[in-house]
């Protein structure tokens, strides 16, 4: 059995999972107008981390770990995230039976402009970023870095579970993060896929995604949490649409396959799912595609939400922070409303949550999709 031990979220709405969740419950939106030429010639909406707070919190940790090295913004976010998640468990990060998996799409990409002289240009390499994290914690295993577009986070968690099941490790710390950068903002702008306002997942007026920066951690383990409700990883998979490199399959081909395989591994059927945490980026095509995948799998009875309306699309962090929120929702039996959503704008009658809802949720599906035709699905349930 694979248990979720703890989680953390470093975001614009909080520096731990509970704080972030509570902010969302209150309806706070982390996506704000950013007017800074460092990122883009014009203002654009995004969810950004408070850097003053980040540096302050990180300095405290650095003292505790007696570490005087210089770290990039993303590294600080990741380290803080892992430190917090670890503090809630007795996992030994220095053990050979503990692995770290890192999920990121572009890592320290802000270093590519050459404006920042504080770091060697090699730091832009994702394995080097991973090494910095591994070294901070003195973990003896080569850190595993996964970079697979926006499914990286869910893929990393599914991979962690697979490795524990294969008896490669007892505990896996799954961390993910990405920053908002000119590189990414301008890229998405060229795709005309950014909404001019905070994004509206599944809404009839949805007009694009909002970017966000965040770091997140979930720790998965073969050991259960004593004296508390456990949530178990039941199954997961990825699949490719084999259709287009940036647009999703109109028939949700890859998403359908990934969900099928997740059910197969979990040995469960759709009627057992009570809630779905969708990818819900608020682009016209993604949300429509997901509604089709949900319908094709006879999951119309399940409640559906997306939390990207609060924190934006956090790329490599997305699958991880959204799983952390899902775990919190399951623990508290509260489903967060889909911020930004008012009226459904997808062709299938999926059950989108538009108000915070008290509901006993025992078994959930997490969905993710990304560039390159990639799709991922994961099923988790209360043990």
């Amino acid at each position: 059995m694979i248990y979720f031990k703890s989680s953390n979220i470093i975001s614009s709405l909080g520096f731990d999972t509970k704080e972030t969740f509570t902010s969302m419950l209150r309806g706070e939106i982390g996506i704000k107008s950013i007017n800074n030429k460092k990122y883009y010639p014009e203002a654009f909406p995004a969810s950004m981390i408070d850097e003053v707070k980040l540096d302050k919190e990180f300095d405290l940790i650095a003292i505790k770990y007696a570490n005087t090295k210089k770290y990039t913004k993303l590294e600080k976010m990741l380290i803080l995230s892992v430190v917090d998640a670890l503090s809630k468990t007795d996992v030994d990060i220095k053990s050979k039976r503990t692995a770290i998996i890192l999920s990121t799409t572009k890592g320290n990409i802000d270093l590519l402009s050459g404006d920042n002289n504080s770091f060697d240009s090699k730091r832009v390499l994702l394995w080097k970023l991973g090494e910095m994290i591994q070294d901070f914690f003195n973990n003896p295993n080569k850190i595993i870095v996964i970079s697979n577009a926006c499914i990286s986070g869910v893929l990393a968690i599914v991979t962690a579970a697979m490795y524990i099941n294969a008896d490669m490790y007892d505990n896996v710390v799954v961390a993910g993060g990405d920053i908002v950068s000119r590189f990414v903002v301008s890229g998405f702008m060229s795709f005309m896929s950014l909404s001019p306002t905070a994004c509206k997942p599944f809404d009839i007026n949805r007009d694009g995604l909002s970017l966000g920066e965040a770091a997140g951690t979930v720790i998965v383990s073969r050991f259960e949490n004593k004296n508390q409700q456990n949530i178990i990883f039941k199954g997961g998979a990825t699949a490719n649409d084999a259709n287009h490199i940036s647009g999703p399959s109109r028939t949700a081909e890859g998403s359908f396959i990934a969900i099928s395989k997740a059910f197969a591994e979990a040995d469960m059927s759709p009627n057992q799912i009570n809630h779905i945490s969708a990818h819900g980026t608020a682009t016209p095509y993604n949300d429509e595609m997901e509604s089709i995948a949900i319908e094709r799998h006879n999951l119309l009875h399940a409640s559906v939400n997306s939390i990207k309306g609060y924190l934006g699309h956090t790329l490599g962090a997305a699958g991880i922070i959204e799983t952390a929120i899902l775990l919190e929702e399951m623990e508290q039996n509260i489903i967060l409303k889909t911020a930004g959503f008012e009226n459904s704008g997808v062709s299938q009658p999926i059950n989108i949550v538009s108000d915070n809802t008290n509901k006993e949720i025992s078994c959930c599906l997490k969905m993710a999709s990304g560039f390159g035709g990639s799709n991922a699905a994961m099923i988790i349930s209360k043990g």
Partner: protein
Amino acid sequence: MEELIEKLKVQIIEQLNLEDMEPEDIDAEESLFGEGLGLDSIDALELIVLLEKEYGIKIQNPKDGQKIFFSLKTMAEFIQENQKGTAEV
């Protein structure tokens, strides 16, 4: 107009990496996105970049692209109508 169309042929071949094509292979009236050149959604966005870069015309709504980029001829007509410095559409 003829000159603009010939110029566009060369620019499109370069911008969209239509490697094996020569300008004479492209018919000014043939549909760019259908059976003709078989361009896709990324190509459509690239044409928007081309319009801004080479002709200073900014298209705000990608959906307008369908009409404008129907064929080289419609593209040329659009450029001629809108190229007065930086026209915003």
